[in-house]
């Protein structure tokens, strides 16, 4: 009950933030655009994808039409992931530092509420908001694609879960850094540097970093870093593959679940020991 109250409160707090309203607005504009732009035309030669009434593909046999639609859905999911990473982190990075301010945290922790419950409520609230946003975009996009193009792809709908899960991994880092630094600006900078520089370099370490690093010891250190930090780029690629009906690699999900979970638990432990 108390955790649910905190989830609802965090949900409310985030909905009030301009960044999430922008994300919702952009999602809505894209959805309206999709609804207006997408259509198909079927002739004896096959089905043609039309964008604003103009043929975007040659006629394709109906049975193969899905192969045109799946990349489109993957692109939509990829765009949503970028939006969530950029705006979602901006919107949620301040939750913990704001809550830890004097006069605010005192009110919460003086209530019959364990510290872990407080953090869980905040964590689940942030993930719930991004999950709701993802569900809004993916469900409506799925309906539009289904109604306009006749392709009802359940894998695309399932990506609501995998994208939300990916955000939960990222948010575990945001929460941990927010607890340590008490600064939303510093948290955003560190997470962005990690996601866009370090994680990408670690993901492509064999084709890029190893060209410059010849020492076996250093390579082992880089590998260790790769395995102890959440593999967000690998998770993102796995989500895209899932939508494109390619063989999905669950290892990054499991590994990131373990490392993000460890970060979350360590953050909770530090918070429990801290003087407020």
């Amino acid at each position, binding site marked *: 009950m108390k955790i649910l109250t905190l989830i609802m409160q965090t949900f409310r707090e985030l909905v009030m933030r301009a960044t999430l309203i922008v994300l919702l607005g952009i999602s809505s504009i894209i959805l309206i655009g999709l609804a207006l732009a997408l259509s198909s035309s079927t002739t004896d030669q096959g089905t043609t994808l039309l964008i604003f009434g103009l043929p975007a593909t040659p006629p394709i046999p109906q049975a193969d039409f899905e192969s045109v639609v799946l990349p489109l859905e993957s692109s939509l999911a990829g765009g949503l992931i970028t939006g969530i990473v950029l705006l979602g982190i901006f919107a949620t990075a301040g939750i913990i530092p704001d809550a830890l*301010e004097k006069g605010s*945290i*005192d009110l919460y*922790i*003086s209530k*019959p509420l364990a510290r872990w419950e407080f953090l869980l409520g905040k964590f689940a609230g942030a993930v719930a908001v991004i999950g709701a946003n993802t569900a809004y975009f993916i469900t409506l996009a799925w309906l539009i694609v289904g109604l306009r193009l006749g392709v009802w792809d359940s894998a695309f709908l399932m990506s609501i879960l995998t994208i939300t899960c990916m955000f939960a991994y990222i948010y575990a880092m945001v929460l941990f850094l927010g607890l340590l630094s008490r600064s939303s600006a510093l948290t955003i900078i560190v997470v962005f540097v990690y996601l866009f520089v370090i994680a990408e370099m670690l993901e492509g370490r064999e084709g890029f970093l190893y060209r410059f690093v010849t020492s076996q010891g250093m390579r082992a250190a880089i590998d260790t870093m790769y395995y102890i930090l959440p593999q967000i780029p690998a998770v993102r690629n796995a989500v895209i593959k899932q939508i494109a009906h390619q063989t999905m690699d669950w290892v990054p999900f499991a590994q990131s679940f373990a490392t993000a979970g460890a970060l979350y638990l360590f953050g909770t432990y530090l918070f429990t020991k801290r003087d407020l």
Partner: protein
Amino acid sequence: MTAVETESLSKTYRTGFPRKASVAALSGVSLAVDEGKIFGLLGPNGAGKTTFIKILLGLTHPSAGEATLLGVKLPDTRVKSRVGYLPENPRYPPYLNGLQVLELFGKLCGLSSLDARRKAPGLLATVGLEEWRTMKAKRFSKGMLQRLGLAQALINDPDILFLDEPTDGIDPVGRKEIRELLKKLSGEGKTVFLNSHLLSEVEMISDTVAILDRGRLLRVGTIDELTAAGSAYRITHEGILPEELLLEAAALVIHIKDLDGTISVETNDAAELNRLIDLLRRHGITITSVLRVRSSLEDSFMHLIKREIPA
């Protein structure tokens, strides 16, 4: 029964890098607060008052010592359902209005949504915020935030209230209203633990007072005990006291001052006072009254604090 009991409670903060410097915020504080009383914890800034409360509420971990709250050994999260707390400078979610703030904290205290919603309007009326109940907390003045804080501290009908500088930013009329409310709550059997540096406020309502300075407990007692008539007297006389006589009198007592026919004097005991009166009478001074002076809480406080400051 005691509402709060601490035994050699200590807190040392590690500061600097690599955390080698230490600051003793509390040093072996042993204190007992009776149930149903208004207890005032006094001390200058940095005395350790807030640290003491924060340890009792589980916000800060003690370095040593033990504490019990309402008979429950700390730390214990569940006992906090019987506690209300108003922190210094409370900050509420800015997007919530007064009613929503109370509903939120009521639910965090374990009340059902319905109960919290039912109690909120009455509490806002009690603290004088009825008119502004739908105004967002971010638009509240400092005094209004304090009043709202008091209402949220009462939402769970607590057995003990911890109030950290509750009248900060509140006008004199509001202060009086809050004093009356606290007296009423105490009358209902609730314990009020008041943390303040406003001595006159505490003096007006507290049953018992403790004085804390630099983490050490200097004195505990009732207001009467702390401000008890001591060794200060006021002697009124007719005529003018000659300078030589005043010098001779000064040798008999701790301190003496003559101003417009009134001698303020501090003595070690009644015998000294009598020797002074004998001296004045021998010199033909007509004494019209001798009054024992009761010190204010502020005098006692300053006296204690000054005594503790090394020369």
